[in-house]
Every structure is written in C-alpha cells, then in structure tokens.
C-alpha cells in the first residue's frame, strides 16, 4: 500500500452543479457522514486521505516497524570508543634519537550542545578555524633536508612544508638559533629535532 497514492482521486468523480446550491452541498456532506465509516473520517482528518480500517492497521504496523529499525540504528555500539582508543600517554613519539611532536591538545567546550544557538556558535568558530588554517596554508615553503646520523648521510631531498609564523620568523631572522621542532606535513607523521637551518 502506498500511502502517498491513497485517496488521490477523491474529488474527481464528484459532480457539482453550478451556482451556490447550498442545499446540494449540505446533502453531499450529510450523505458522506452517513455512508463513510467513522475510522475513515478520522483518517481523513489525520492524514488528509481516506483509509479503510485495514489500511490504517497496516499503516500503524509500518510505523511500528520503522520505529524499531530506527531504535536499532541508534542503539550504542557493543564496544565503547574508550576501549578502542589508544590514549596519548601510551603513544610513542620517539624512536632512538628521532622524536616527533605529539599533536596538540584541543581545548574545546563540549560541542554536543542541545540548543540551536550553541550549534550556531560552534559553526562560527569552525569557520574562523578554517580561515586561520587557510591563511597558514599560504605559508608554504620548499625546504631541503638532510638526515644524518653519526656523520653518515641517511637521506636527503626536498619537500614543500608549511611553516608556522614562529618558524618563518626564526628562518628569516638569520640567527643561528636552532629551531627545535618543525611540524612536517601530516603524511610524514613525525616531527624531528631541527638542529640547523638556514634560509636559502
């Protein structure tokens, strides 16, 4: 049974005489009231369509099934996320002399808010964050690197990296102050100690 298709032709078969024949209209209404079962009248009021008792029953069953399916979809997962997560304290950020920086902790208010106003402010903040990220993305530089261990060259090459403002200022200052860390693009997943750098 397609709910949308029921009762589409309700009024097409009605013959209405021209002019304001209120008596005719009243007779039609009274006749409808007398011949249409109460259930159908209620369904028309509720749903805007006329349904038989059997159809109504089927519709109620369909709604109950939908509700059940919905509750199944929303029910919690068998294992909580806490059990699947490896906490920051247990992650490894150093292998031998090579160490990389842990991702920053994001201090944030609980974004699971109930009111539309809170949601709106969250989105606004996200917009600002995106804007700042785009601004930083513009500061891309080609960096040559040499990875040495005990005087032996292990790897050399160059890559495009994003520098923070602090990193850029350190490079442009020309001072020989070593930049301690450099956050490499995400695909590298590591942050190495930066012993010496020079603007090229």
């Amino acid at each position, binding site marked *: 049974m397609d*709910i*949308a298709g029921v009762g589409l032709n309700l009024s097409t078969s009605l013959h209405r005489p021209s002019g304001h024949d209120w008596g005719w209209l009243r007779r039609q209404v009274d006749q409808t009231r007398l011949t249409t079962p109460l259930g159908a009248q209620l369904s028309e009021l509720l749903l805007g369509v006329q349904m038989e008792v059997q159809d109504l029953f089927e519709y109620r069953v369909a709604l109950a*099934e939908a*509700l059940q399916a*919905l509750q199944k979809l929303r029910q919690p997962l068998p294992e909580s*996320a806490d059990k699947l997560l*490896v906490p920051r304290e247990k992650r490894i950020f150093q292998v031998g002399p090579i160490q990389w920086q842990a991702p920053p902790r994001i201090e944030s208010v609980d974004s699971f808010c109930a009111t539309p106003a809170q949601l709106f402010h969250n989105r606004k903040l996200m917009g600002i*964050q995106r804007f700042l990220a785009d601004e930083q993305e513009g500061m891309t530089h080609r960096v040559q690197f040499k990875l040495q261990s005990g005087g032996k060259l292990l790897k050399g090459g160059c890559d495009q990296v994003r520098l923070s403002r602090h990193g850029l200022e350190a490079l442009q200052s020309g001072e020989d102050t070593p930049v301690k860390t450099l956050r490499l693009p995400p695909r590298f997943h590591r942050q190495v100690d930066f012993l010496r750098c020079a603007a090229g």
Partner: protein
Amino acid sequence: MIEFFRDACQGLREGAIMGASELGAVRALLRERRQNLEQTLPANLGKLRQEFLQASLAFEDALDALELAFSEDTPEMADWIAIKAQDADETLRSIEQTILQHSTMLSEESD
C-alpha cells in the same frame, strides 16, 4: 551510536588515536545496520525513508572523517566531526519523535 562519536571525538581532541582495524569494525557494523534498515523499512514511508537513509549515511561520512583525522593526527577536525554526527543523530531523533506522536495519535483516534 552517538556515544561512540562523542567519545572518539573527545579522544581525538586529547591526542589519542584509534587503529584502522578498530575503525574498520565499526564501519562494518554501521554498514550492516544501514543495510538492515534498507531491508526492513517499509517502502511506503516515502520521504521518511529517505530521511532515515540520509541520516545513516551521514554517520558513515562522519566515520570517514574520523578515520582521516586519526590517520593524519589532526585533532582540529574533532569539532567538525562531532557536529556532523550530532546533526545525524538529531535528525534521527526528530524522526523518532514524529513517528511516536503520529503513532500515538492514530492509536488514540482508532481506539
């Protein structure tokens, strides 16, 4: 379902990670639930059915984003993912409310 995203996003903010295999298991479960939903939802629910399926797909999108955020170590994405999952859950919750109200009205009127 939403509890998983809530906890995972909180973990992401705090610098925790989740392995690809664990996320894969969650994805399989989500997909299974969506497929069950597609099979059991009565076809005559029309627009309601579409809303249902879109919301369940939105959960899968949020999971994709979660996987990306964990693999690229970008806790900055946590808020966005949390909002996306929250939106999907709120859609489902509002559908649930509508169905419940509708169902109650029908049973009251027909009794």
